[in-house]
């Protein structure tokens, strides 16, 4: 067998860089990356058969359930090449698979010399995979094209081999064919990793430089930082220093993952492993930063460090106001493990006390919310997501607005909004539908290319606000789920934007305000007022619902006064029954929010803030 017993394999800190191959797997959600990784763990025998479980490397429940990887990992796999019979160490670096985490992906890629481009040969390449492939090519990584799921009856390896060959400039026959499920072709793949991907190159005698490509908070050990050593050497005795902050840390442990953490004597050039320093917060050990040693620090940081910048903001409020401290605690805890999450207290007249949170994107937002609800047992309402606007007043003052409630009332000279470059991959039959959607969303066509006869790549610039609204849900539903989307921020552009307020009986309901394009203000106003008319129960008086831009009313509805709220009969046995009903209504009344004199059930707020797509998702979840 080409597997090597762990104790006899080359040891960390004592492995010749020429024996090392660092690679990652670029794949779309559900194209079988985790299954292939499981298979590699099995074949290299780092995990014994009896300890094997599905998606071994995905630690969080959420990862396993959603079948996606949120945080990356690195596993050291000893392997004896079937081609030259030599011993090698393969470091498999798992990358997060979503557009929200592009920066983290780019850092994982920077830790590798090669990438496996894994494509489900029943589905073909998806937009996010394509974006990550381009990133890998920009990083000069060696790409090994691999078609997965060749065991599927619907597999079309020829078609997609041609597609991949065209994309990366190789021959269709160069595409390897594997099945993560059956294990077919995986041994050959491991051998090709050795054969094709270059060994890492670095200066063992230079001051230490290690790239942080992931940073994870562990309840027992504090922050575990994943690094790729570029130059020099890290040893357990070192004091290390973060290049960006200059902060010094004691090294508590150095090790490798194989696939459970094992302490080592250190890490040398080209090696991938982890360090533990006793840091309690991932923001002190940021992805992209360079670790060096305190005693012999490097003067030149590794390229590419960036602070994560939140792109999407939303208010999170506990359904039960009493849960506010719990929400704060849960956010604090989550932030230990999520350097990109930012939040600050926010209070809403309608929703009470909560937090304005900043996220990398919509998935990041969903994941955070889901983790808060699941891990802290909270029930939350979130307000409609907003992007970051720069508003310039007539007198030249600039304001950053991430919440419609901060939108200035005075004269506005201009508003800048974030713009993204969006790439959509889809079967060509949907070109018309997709273009229509992008036009509706203020998109500008950049170009279109055929990937194969019946698949196209369509590129648009679109305001991020439009994407954030419900673009992805719309795209999926209008293309029967076939289209995939990727986007990257490319700057800002001036937008003809206005703030639409919603008023209930003249009282402004902050949770429903939105910043929208002028041409869509009316539609938003009509949508919200009619939705609220359905959702808010009739009151003792007529309640006007208005949508307004400043003092100008653009849409109105009214809830007629209730005329009948009485039980006709109340005799002997009815009395207890009616009193018990009253006691129950008392509980309901507690959950009413007052907007001026209008009683609004919490359910109405939730429903009004929920898009149809959310409702469908919730239904689907309830079913499964």
């Amino acid at each position, binding site marked *: 067998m080409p597997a090597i017993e762990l104790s006899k394999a080359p040891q960390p800190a004592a492995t010749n860089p020429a024996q090392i191959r660092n690679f990652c797997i670029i794949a779309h959600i559900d194209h079988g990356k985790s299954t292939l990784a499981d298979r590699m763990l099995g074949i290299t025998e780092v995990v014994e058969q009896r300890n094997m479980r599905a998606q071994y490397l995905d630690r969080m429940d959420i990862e396993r359930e959603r079948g996606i990887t949120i945080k990356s990992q690195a596993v050291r796999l000893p392997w004896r090449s079937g081609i030259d019979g030599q011993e090698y160490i393969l470091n498999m670096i798992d990358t997060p698979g979503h557009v929200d985490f592009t920066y983290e992906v780019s850092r994982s890629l920077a830790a590798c010399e090669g990438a496996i481009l894994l494509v489900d040969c029943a589905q073909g390449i998806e937009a996010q995979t394509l974006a990550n492939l381009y990133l890998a090519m920009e990083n000069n990584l060696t790409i090994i094209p691999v078609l997965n799921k060749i065991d599927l009856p619907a597999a079309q390896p020829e078609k997609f081999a041609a597609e991949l060959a065209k994309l990366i400039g190789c021959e269709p026959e160069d595409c390897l064919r594997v099945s993560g499920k059956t294990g077919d072709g995986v041994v050959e793949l491991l051998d090709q990793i050795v054969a094709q991907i270059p060994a890492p190159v670095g200066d063992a005698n230079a001051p230490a430089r290690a790239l942080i490509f992931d940073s994870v908070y562990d309840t027992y050990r504090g922050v575990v930082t994943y690094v790729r050593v570029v130059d020099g050497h890290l040893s357990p005795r070192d004091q290390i220093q973060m290049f960006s902050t200059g902060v010094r840390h004691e090294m508590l442990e150095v090790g490798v993952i194989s696939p459970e953490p094992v302490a080592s004597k250190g890490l040398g050039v080209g090696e991938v492993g982890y360090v533990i320093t006793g840091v309690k917060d991932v923001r002190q050990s940021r992805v992209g930063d360079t670790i060096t040693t305190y005693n012999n620090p490097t003067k030149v940081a590794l390229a590419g460090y960036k602070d994560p910048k939140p792109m999407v903001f939303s208010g999170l409020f506990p359904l039960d106001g009493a849960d506010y401290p719990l929400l704060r605690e849960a956010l604090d805890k989550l932030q230990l493990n999520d350097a990109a999450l930012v939040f600050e207290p926010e209070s809403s007249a309608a929703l009470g006390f909560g937090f304005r949170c900043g996220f990398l994107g919509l998935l990041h937002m969903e994941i955070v919310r889901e983790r808060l609800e699941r891990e802290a047992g909270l029930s939350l309402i979130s307000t409609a997501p907003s992007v970051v606007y720069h508003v310039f007043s007539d007198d030249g003052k600039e304001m950053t607005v991430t919440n419609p409630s901060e939108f200035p009332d005075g004269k506005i000279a201009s508003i800048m909004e974030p713009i993204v470059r969006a790439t959509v991959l889809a079967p060509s039959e949907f070109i018309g539908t997709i273009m229509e959607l992008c036009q509706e969303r203020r998109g500008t066509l950049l170009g279109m290319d055929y990937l194969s006869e019946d698949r196209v790549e369509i590129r648009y610039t679109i305001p991020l606000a439009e994407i954030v609204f419900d673009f992805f849900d719309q795209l999926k539903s209008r293309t029967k789920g076939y289209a995939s989307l990727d986007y990257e921020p490319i700057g800002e552009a001036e937008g003809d934007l206005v703030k639409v307020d919603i008023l209930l009986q003249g009282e402004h309901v902050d949770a429903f305000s939105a910043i929208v394009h002028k041409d869509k203000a009316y539609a938003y106003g009509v949508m919200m007022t009619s939705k609220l008319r359905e959702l808010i129960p009739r009151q*003792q008086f007529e309640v006007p619902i208005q949508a307004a831009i400043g003092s100008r009313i653009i849409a109105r509805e009214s809830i007629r006064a*209730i005329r*009948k709220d009485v039980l006709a009969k*109340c*005799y*002997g*046995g009815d*009395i*207890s029954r009616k009193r018990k009903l*009253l006691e129950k209504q008392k509980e309901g009344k507690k959950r009413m929010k007052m907007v001026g004199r209008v009683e609004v059930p919490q359910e109405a707020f939730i429903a009004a803030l929920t898009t149809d797509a959310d409702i469908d998702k919730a239904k689907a979840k309830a079913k499964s």
Partner: protein
Amino acid sequence: MKRCGYCDFNTYTPAELQITSELSEISRSYIDLLIDEAKLARNQAPQAGAIPTIFFGGGTPTLMEPSDLARILQELKASFGFAPDIEITIEANPDTLSLEKLSQLRATGINRISVGMQSTSPHVLKVLDRTHNPANVGSAVKWAREAGFEHVSVDLIYGTPGESLADWENTLREAIALDIDHISAYALIVEAGTKLAAQVKRGEVEVPDDDLMADKYLLADQLFSAAGFEWYELSNWAKPEGECRHNIAYWQGRNWWGLGPGAHSHIDGKRWWNVKHPATYRDRLLAGEFPAADSEILTATQIESERVMLEIRLRSGIARSSLDAAAIDRLQSYVAGAQLDAQSWADGLVVLTQTGRLIADRIVREILL
């Protein structure tokens, strides 16, 4: 024999009970059981004085033999005594009545009769599963007067699926033309578990619209007032001296004892209710046991909730001085909105206006929550 489709009373047909005996036999043995329970009641409530009111209802008691009704009345009179002005009411299906039957009933001491008229529209009666001939109501009322009943009332139901405002107006006009001194008019409640509720659920009939219900209530109140019937409770109107004293006792939180399966009772802040099934009821009594299924002792808060919830229904209203300052403050907007009567409010009373009566439950919640 069959039950009406909207009825959620604790009723059973002989077929459901798998009883094959004659109705007269059922009537006799049932009254025997009531007499047993009345005896227990006498022991349980030794302090109770002469009985001021008795009500036979919650089904069709006129199906029983007048002689059996006489037996239970004799028993009650013997063990408790009757107040000199006792009011004894019986509910009646017009089809079960004749001048002879009414005379027999009157002879037992029953002096008030409430006739289930419901509607004059055949299509409405059909939806309600009422089999009576609307024309029989007029003769029933006439005979009741001939038989010497002091008080005659009719029950009406509005808001039945398919009933138009014009249908309801016809019913109202026919009702007020009768020689009666009391009218109850109830908005139809689609009670869970009834045949009607199932029909609504299956989409066979449409749930009555609340706005139309409100219009019907207002029309009723208007026509009744014009005909000399004044409201004294949300769903009850009477000519002077025609109020049902028995029902007023419920709304005033008085003590009462309910005899029979499923009957509820209230004595001094304790409520209990009998086992529902007639067979269980019989077994318990035959074993000499008290037939209560369960009971509750009301807390001070619950007593107050019930007081507000019941007193608000009455024209006599709630004394403002009995409410806390915050509640009084919250009610101001209902005075301004003419849902509470401004004059009464000034006089220190919380009394509903015509439109206020339609949202009585909301006002109760405003006071209590």
